[in-house]
């Protein structure tokens, strides 16, 4: 009993630390990749007690410290309770959504099979949708509680945008659920371990390319970053819904954005790119063209490779979203709404119908 509780806690802590690490890496991309894109050097001047030798690493340490030491201002006329609550409501659901994302197969230690997933839930997809849906409240309440016109406009834009794009995201997910025939993320990833024609890993992208595009676009829109950063849009609304936030609370909103970026990356990996699957790697070693290349100490090496595979893919999609963010300009609000309702929604409906028809005609695809 005590061991089970300890294992459950260890898995949750591992997942949260993983998310925070990838988020930190995301900040690194944000500072350095953006600099490369814009042909400049990027942050390299942070000096901690006179030591500036590590360049960007110093900046990564100095940034959060700076945020935590700044004064935390609550504007006059603000609703103090909701002003305090909003950043918490923004971060917590985004982090909680990671509970159902599998980061590996099964680790067998001392006759105990440990599922490498923080929570085994048979409605995993719906759980993710529920958590992303709850993320809206942080934005809305921050906008309202600040007693500031810019914030209110940002909050209203944010809630309209997130509700609109949740629908596209949900429709993309229906296509995926139809393909795998399950709502459980772990069993989705297991199904992607199959091989098509004996050599091609049966990753979700092969079955659901349109859902991938839909999901990625809707996901980037949900994380409220350029080109979908209308709720924040610093050139129009100062800083949108978190204009009136400073110090640690401002940091929490930035963190919520980054956690959502990592969440979208993790979900794209899980649904479309085989999650923790390493091509041709089974429980005992690599199986290539009928040959078996066994790995030494497979009980620990194979799960380690799987976790690494999941992390590499997740980091890649985090990087991709940051490159998108530094490449595209911001949409106009009418363009944003038109894309959501007249572009993604019909495409999502067509994708669901086509998937259902294909399954009806040729049986379950995966």
């Amino acid at each position, binding site marked *: 009993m005590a061991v089970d509780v300890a294992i459950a806690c260890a898995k949750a802590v591992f997942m949260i630390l993983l998310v925070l690490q990838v988020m930190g890496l995301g900040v690194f991309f944000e500072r350095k990749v953006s600099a490369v894109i814009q042909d400049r050097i990027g942050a390299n001047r942070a000096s901690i007690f006179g030591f500036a030798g590590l360049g960007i690493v110093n900046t990564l340490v100095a940034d959060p410290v700076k945020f935590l030491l700044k004064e935390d201002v609550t504007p006059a006329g603000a*609703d103090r309770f*909701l002003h305090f609550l909003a950043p918490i409501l923004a971060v917590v659901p985004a982090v909680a959504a990671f509970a159902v994302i599998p980061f590996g197969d099964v680790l067998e230690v001392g006759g105990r099979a440990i599922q490498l997933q923080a929570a085994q*839930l*048979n*409605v995993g997809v*719906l*759980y993710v*949708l*529920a958590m992303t*849906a*709850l993320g*809206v*409240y942080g934005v*809305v*309440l921050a*906008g*309202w509680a600040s007693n500031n016109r810019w914030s*209110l406009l940002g*909050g*209203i834009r944010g*809630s*309209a945008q997130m*509700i609109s794009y*949740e629908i596209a995201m949900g429709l993309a997910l229906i296509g995926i659920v139809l393909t795998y025939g399950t*709502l459980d993320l772990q069993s989705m990833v297991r199904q992607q371990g199959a091989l098509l024609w004996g050599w091609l890993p049966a990753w979700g992208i092969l079955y659901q390319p349109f859902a991938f595009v839909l999901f990625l676009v809707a996901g980037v829109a949900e994380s409220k970053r350029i080109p979908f950063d209308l709720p924040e849009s610093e050139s129009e609304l100062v800083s949108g819904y978190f204009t009136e936030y400073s110090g640690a609370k401002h940091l929490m909103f930035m963190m919520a954005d980054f956690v959502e970026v990592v969440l979208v990356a993790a979900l794209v990996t899980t649904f479309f790119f085989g999650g923790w699957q390493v091509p041709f790697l089974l429980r005992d070693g690599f199986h290539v063209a009928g040959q078996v290349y066994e790995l030494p100490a497979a009980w620990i090496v194979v799960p380690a490779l799987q976790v690494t595979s999941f992390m590499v893919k997740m980091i890649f999609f985090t990087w991709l979203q940051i490159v998108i963010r530094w490449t595209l300009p911001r949409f106009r609000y009418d363009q944003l709404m038109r894309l959501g309702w007249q572009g993604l929604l019909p495409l999502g409906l067509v994708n669901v119908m086509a998937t259902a028809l294909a399954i009806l005609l040729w049986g379950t695809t995966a």
Partner: protein
Amino acid sequence: MSVLVFLVLAALTVAAALTVILHRNPVYSALALVSTLALLSCFFVLLEAYMVWALQIVVYAGAIVVLFVFVIMLLNVQSDERALPGPGTVVGVAGGAGLLALLIATVAVRGVTANPPAVGAGFGTPEHLARRLFTDYLVPFEVTSLLLLVAIVGAVVLGKRRI
């Protein structure tokens, strides 16, 4: 243990529900409504109906009440603009009291058993729910979707001046 959890949840739910109708600020009322719905969904978890729990959160907490909050913010309703008790309030209180009396009478007549009826394995899973929904309850399900379609058409007709 589960009785204790139930009692705590029930007390919190009633408190949140009372806040919905008693708080002066409409934004707080809407938030209390979300809390009520979220706490209600916890009872589905106690009943091992995870699917219903997730749907409750996605549909009510995540979509419908967000729209409530959105409208309250957009119209910038002030707390003192709330209507004084009128005929609607009386009807509402009477209806609520009637429903409560019906509930208490039902519990008093039927009695409460400590042991709920046993359910089969897989109860509350998506497969189980879908099978029941699309076989035994197909007609009510389709009628409900028709009702929703009518509501959508009605909303479009009301919202657009010229069609």
